[in-house]
């Protein structure tokens, strides 16, 4: 494997590189920067030597790997069942009896909301992802002054969107209203 150093950026002098840098070589501080202890450490090359192969072209390898991964993804999705409904139910369970003053309870709710957001993004449910993101923003922004009623409103909206009671348009309206309510609460607290 050959390594071609990147060209220097415009207006910057080229870095001086030695073919075999010393493990203890110190990088020069930038002019004007505070002097801090800074050591440049070369990364062992054994992983790169093993991890990269040059027996096929970049595009060909990319397309082959992507095709295999996409087929595997389709199998996972086919067997996943209604993961979004499961995550929504899980989030509702965690948020049940939400106590704003309980930091551990807030942390559990935040994790559940964040996880629901991730799942919703994975299954292409953008309105549920927005609701979950809004709930996470509320919990992390308002802390122990989080209104429990607004947490419950998020949970209800998520459930309505995931069990089919709210169509896409209604879900979008709900998401927008929740985001606006969270913004109002957070701006009042600021």
């Amino acid at each position: 494997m050959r390594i071609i150093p990147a060209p220097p950026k415009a207006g910057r002098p080229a870095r001086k590189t030695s073919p075999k840098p010393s493990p203890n070589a110190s990088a020069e501080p930038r002019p004007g920067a505070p002097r801090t202890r800074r050591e440049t450490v070369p990364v062992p090359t054994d992983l790169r030597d093993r991890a990269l192969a040059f027996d096929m072209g970049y595009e060909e390898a990319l397309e082959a790997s992507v095709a295999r991964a996409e087929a595997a993804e389709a199998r996972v999705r086919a067997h996943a069942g209604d993961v979004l409904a499961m995550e929504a139910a899980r989030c509702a369970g965690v948020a049940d009896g939400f106590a704003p003053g309980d930091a551990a309870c807030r942390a559990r709710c935040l994790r559940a909301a964040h996880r629901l957001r991730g799942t919703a993004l994975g299954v292409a449910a953008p309105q549920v992802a927005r609701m979950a993101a809004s709930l996470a923003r509320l919990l992390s922004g308002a802390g122990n002054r989080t209104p429990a009623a607004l947490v419950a409103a998020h949970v209800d909206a998520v459930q309505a969107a995931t069990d089919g009671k709210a169509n896409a348009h209604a879900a979008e309206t709900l998401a927008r209203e929740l985001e606006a309510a969270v913004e109002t609460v957070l701006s009042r607290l600021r």
Partner: protein
Amino acid sequence: MRIAFENLSFVVAEDDPFWRRLVVAWLEACGARSVRDTADGARALALMREAPADVVVTDWEMPGLDGIALTKALRDRAASPNAFVPILMLTAYGERGRVMRAMRAGVNGYLVKPVTPRAFYERLLAVLADTRPFVATPHYFGPDRSRPQALVLPQEG
């Protein structure tokens, strides 16, 4: 150039079972030599201590040890089983401040969900082909991002 998955072992730390299954399925389909997965950062660290993997893929938000704490533990040169291990963070957090925090913790790559297999492959390849050294300061050990990335080409002949 391609990723030689057949030579690589992975640890996947992700508390969302759907995303965990998805990432494991991608890696196995691409022919990864071994893939171990877990729902929490503490277990991922334990797996790395049992047998260091070549690459760690981690979520940010996890119960117990989160992705940032896991990254910091892996970059701790005094205690880590491999302080240079490439770490790819895969999270729903896309805010700039979050990305900067992950970079300051020492991750090599950052991907925001939803992620496609193509984006995952391309980011992983960029991480594995990264030739830049690490930098150590009193508060940071990780990739030196002040340097431009070099180009990796096959050896002639």
